[in-house]
């Protein structure tokens, strides 16, 4: 519910921010587009204006030069034809001839009152004679538009000239003309497909040369006023007229039929004319619009791509969020399922616990009721024992599982003999298998590596679990087979690949069950096996241990055909170390109700060099120990089984402590996890625990540990190996000192011989074969012969080792002069009393190097 709320909230937030971003980007991009359009628009305006000004100026100067050329021609005409002293007829014909030569289509003289006398060509009159004539009268040159009788327009060039008129009066100017086309063609004013359209108007605004492309039509009107009729925001007729009057340029924009047109006016010299250029904007606009539309398209495209990216990201994010929520949901469901499985397990467990508990309670009641019927009580007790075992197994499994689940189960890798381990497993399984009359084959083939580094106890647990499952799920008379074989390991030469196979021909498992065989708290919940005890944790524990050992477990099974478990491990090879397993010759008592275990333990202990005794019951053990205690010859270690007939191990320990005091180490042997009774055991005086089965290595290392040899072991590891089999001669007159020294030395493994004084020491040495003694410890003050004398005598003797055998002084005198005297007498070193193992080890190390 909350998840959904959060989901909605997230979705709303995402959608809102997405929409916000969308709107923002649309606004940003359109703002950018509009701004850019404006900017380019004004830029184009500017470009247009510059272009038009340039063009107009060019045309104006062109026009000027054309006009000037014509004026020069007329001036030249006047200057080459003098007016004086000539016959009028001859003068005129001369003028006409020269004018024709200069391609003037018309020539006339103009009187000061505006009277035109045509010398050749059609009669022509300026359209607006007054300013023209006035200019000539003033002696200026002038250009103007005129009209012949047919209405054809011509351009008039008037210059000051003083020729006689027909009536004899002097003329005020000579006027020559060319057709208007001459000018327009020359200026290319009205060609098709031009960017610009031109027309020429006078200073007062009246049109001189019209342009059909512009099409103002009525030339009699004034342009500034005409233009006012168009849509004009910028344009002002007044400003235009002023500019025309003052011979200034003028630029503006007008709109014709909704299309923008650029207007530019520039005055033309030598005339009252102005060149007007008009450029329709749509030409430039076309380019600009293309640009604009392209830019708009790209902007929209960019906007869209950004949006698409964002949508993709948004969708991706949304998807991820959803995925997370789904995962959350899934893990929640898993947790629920797990807790459900646990509750189911608890329900099953309470059934499983209740069954043996009921048996115990019931049997106890029956036994109490028939307390005098020994046979019946025995039967009850047997059943109680059975049920207790079941219960204990169950509890151990649960404890293991809880260790695994809390991550507290760790492996203790130690040098383990696989052969011993298998022997142990087999001896444990034997009774179970026998009781169901099953056949049990053990095959150990092809093993070259007997010792490997692994957690033997856990590996043992795995094998026992698989084997006990095999016996449990195999009917009476079935066959169980355990095999071990070795292969070279892919991990390298230092590793060995071990295969262990547990096979039975029992009831087998279905494929569905195989899938969840390693799940905690699962059990093939079928009626046929309902009566078989177990918590359903064994396989989970097994799987966990195998995984922790970096091994593999495979299972193949067929219902009613049998099951095969195949374990594969890559173990690091360990050195075989049988030879190292030697302990001091302690007196030891082993108490266990299993005679077979006692006997095999005896054998093992004997190989360590321990003198051991055994007994089957706690009561007997107490008797034996107390008797020895009275003799002052106590056991040095007592091994107690936890479960004993009659009083149990802890009670025995308590009793022993009461009689013997606290110094003798008592160790408890147990096949079970002792954490549940550890506190009680410690309180009863138990010093430590050894787990069953009692492998050789288990015994050796535990005994060594509990007897305090572990510490010196690390210090004197080399020496232990070296000193074993060595012989040391110890000269000491005092029995106590001798005992102390020999006791401490014996922990390092050598054989120690006693010489009671210097004399005996010398004799023993001289009688010994060469190389018999490895070292001599020498007390200094001894009767008959002191240590000094003995050392000197040994060095002087004829014995082959006389010079080489190390002699170490062992004295209460630790003054430097004493030490010096020892060295002077041929001794190699000095150990001061009291004797300390660490110091002896050090000195021996030096002397025997």
């Amino acid at each position, binding site marked *: 519910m909350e998840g959904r709320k959060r989901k909605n909230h997230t979705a709303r937030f995402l959608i809102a921010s997405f929409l916000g971003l969308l709107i923002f980007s649309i606004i940003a991009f359109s703002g950018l587009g509009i701004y850019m359009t404006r900017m380019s628009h004004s830029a184009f305006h500017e470009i247009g204006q510059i272009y038009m000004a340039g063009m107009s100026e060019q045309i104006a100067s062109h026009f000027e030069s054309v006009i000037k050329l014509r004026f020069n021609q007329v001036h030249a005409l006047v200057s080459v034809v003098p007016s004086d002293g000539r016959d009028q007829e001859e003068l005129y014909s001369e003028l006409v001839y020269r004018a024709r030569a200069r391609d003037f289509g018309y020539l006339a003289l103009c009187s000061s009152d505006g009277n035109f006398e045509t010398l050749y060509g059609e009669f022509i009159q300026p359209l607006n004679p007054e300013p023209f004539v006035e200019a000539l009268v003033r002696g200026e040159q002038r250009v103007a538009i005129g009209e012949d009788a047919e209405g054809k327009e011509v351009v008039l060039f008037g210059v000051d000239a003083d020729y006689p008129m027909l009536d004899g009066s002097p003329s005020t100017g000579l006027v020559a003309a060319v057709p208007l086309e001459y000018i327009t063609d020359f200026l290319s004013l009205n060609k098709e497909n031009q960017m610009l359209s031109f027309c020429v108007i006078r200073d007062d605004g009246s049109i001189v040369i019209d342009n059909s492309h512009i099409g103002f039509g009525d030339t009699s009107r004034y342009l500034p006023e005409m233009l006012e009729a168009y849509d004009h925001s910028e344009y002002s007729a007044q400003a235009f007229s002023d500019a025309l009057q003052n011979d200034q340029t003028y630029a503006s924009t007008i709109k014709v039929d909704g299309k923008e047109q650029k207007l530019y006016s520039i005055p033309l010299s030598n005339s009252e004319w102005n060149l007007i250029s008009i450029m329709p904007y749509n030409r430039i606009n076309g380019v600009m619009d293309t640009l604009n539309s392209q830019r708009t398209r790209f902007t929209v495209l960019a906007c869209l791509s950004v949006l698409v990216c964002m949508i993709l990201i948004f969708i991706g994010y949304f998807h991820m969020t959803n995925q997370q929520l789904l995962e959350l949901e899934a893990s929640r469901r898993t947790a629920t399922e797990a807790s459900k499985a646990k509750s189911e397990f608890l329900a099953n467990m309470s059934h499983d616990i209740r069954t043996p508990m009921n048996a115990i309670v019931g049997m106890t009641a029956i036994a109490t009721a028939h307390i005098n019927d020994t046979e019946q009580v025995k039967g009850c007790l047997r059943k109680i024992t059975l049920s207790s075992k079941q219960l204990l197994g169950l509890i151990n499994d649960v404890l293991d599982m809880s260790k695994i689940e809390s991550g507290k189960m760790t492996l203790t890798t130690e040098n383990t003999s696989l052969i011993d381990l298998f022997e142990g497993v087999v001896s444990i399984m034997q009774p179970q298998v026998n009781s169901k009359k099953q056949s049990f084959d053990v095959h150990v083939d092809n093993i070259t590596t007997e010792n490997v580094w692994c957690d033997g106890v856990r590996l043992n647990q795995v094998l026992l679990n698989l084997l006990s499952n095999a016996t449990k799920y195999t009917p009476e008379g079935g066959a169980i087979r355990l095999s071990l074989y070795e292969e070279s390991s892919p991990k390298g030469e230092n590793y060995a690949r071990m295969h262990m196979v547990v096979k039975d021909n029992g009831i087998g498992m279905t494929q569905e069950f195989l899938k969840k065989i390693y799940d905690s708290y699962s059990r093939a919940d079928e009626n046929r096996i309902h009566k078989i005890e177990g918590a359903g944790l064994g396989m989970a524990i097994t799987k966990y241990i195998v995984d922790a050992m970096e091994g593999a477990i495979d299972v193949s099974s067929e219902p009613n055909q049998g099951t095969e478990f195949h374990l594969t491990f890559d173990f690091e090879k360990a050195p075989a170390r049988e030879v190292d397993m030697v302990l001091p010759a302690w007196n030891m008592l082993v108490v266990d109700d299993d005679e077979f275990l006692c006997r095999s333990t005896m054998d093992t202990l004997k190989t360590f060099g321990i003198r051991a005794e055994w007994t089957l019951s706690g009561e007997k053990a107490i008797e034996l120990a107390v008797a020895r205690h*009275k003799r*002052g010859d*106590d056991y*040095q270690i007592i091994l107690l089984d936890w479960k004993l007939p009659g009083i149990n191990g802890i009670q025995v320990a308590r009793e022993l402590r009461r009689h013997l*005091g*606290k*110094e*003798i180490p008592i160790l408890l042997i147990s096949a079970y996890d002792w954490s549940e009774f550890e506190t009680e055991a410690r309180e009863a005086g138990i010093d430590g625990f050894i787990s069953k089965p009692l492998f050789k290595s288990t015994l050796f290392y535990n005994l060594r540990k509990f007897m*305090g040899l572990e510490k010196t072991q690390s210090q004197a590891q080399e020496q232990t190996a070296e000193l074993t089999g060595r012989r040391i001669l110890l000269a000491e*007159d*005092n*029995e*106590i*000192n001798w*005992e*102390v020294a020999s*006791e*401490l030395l014996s922990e390092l493994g050598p054989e120690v011989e006693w010489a009671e004084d210097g004399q005996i020491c010398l004799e023993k040495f001289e009688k010994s074969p060469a190389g018999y003694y490895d070292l001599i410890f020498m*007390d200094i*003050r*001894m*009767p008959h012969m002191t240590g000094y004398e003995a050392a000197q005598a040994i060095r002087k003797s004829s014995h082959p080792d006389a010079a080489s055998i190390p002699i170490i002084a062992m*004295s*209460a*005198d630790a003054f430097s002069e004493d030490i010096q005297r020892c060295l002077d007498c041929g001794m190699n070193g000095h150990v001061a*009393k*009291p*004797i*300390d*193992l660490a110091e002896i080890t050090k000195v021996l190390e030096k002397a025997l190097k």
Partner: protein
Amino acid sequence: MNLQECYEKFGGDYDGVMGRLRREQLVRKLLYKFLDDKNFELFEASMQRQEYDEALRAVHTLKGVCQNLSFGQLYESSSRITLALKEKDYGAAAELAPQLAADYGRVMQAIAEYQSSVEE
């Protein structure tokens, strides 16, 4: 009475001896043996006979045993006499002898008490 109390009683160093010999059993065995040790008697007899070399050897051996068994006070007194005899200062040795006897007696008595308490 346990071993530690016994050591405390005659002024010995229980932790020291356990540190070296590690097992109470061994220490106990050696203590019992000490009951039979004749070096002190040898020392007294030699002193009386003025056989100082023999006395020195005996008290020196006693000193060695004391060291091995961490008999603090007895070691001190035996050590002083050893030194005196080595320097042939027999008068000083004779003066120190009663102290040695007292310390020795305390040790012997403590061990005897301990033994009887164990055997009970």
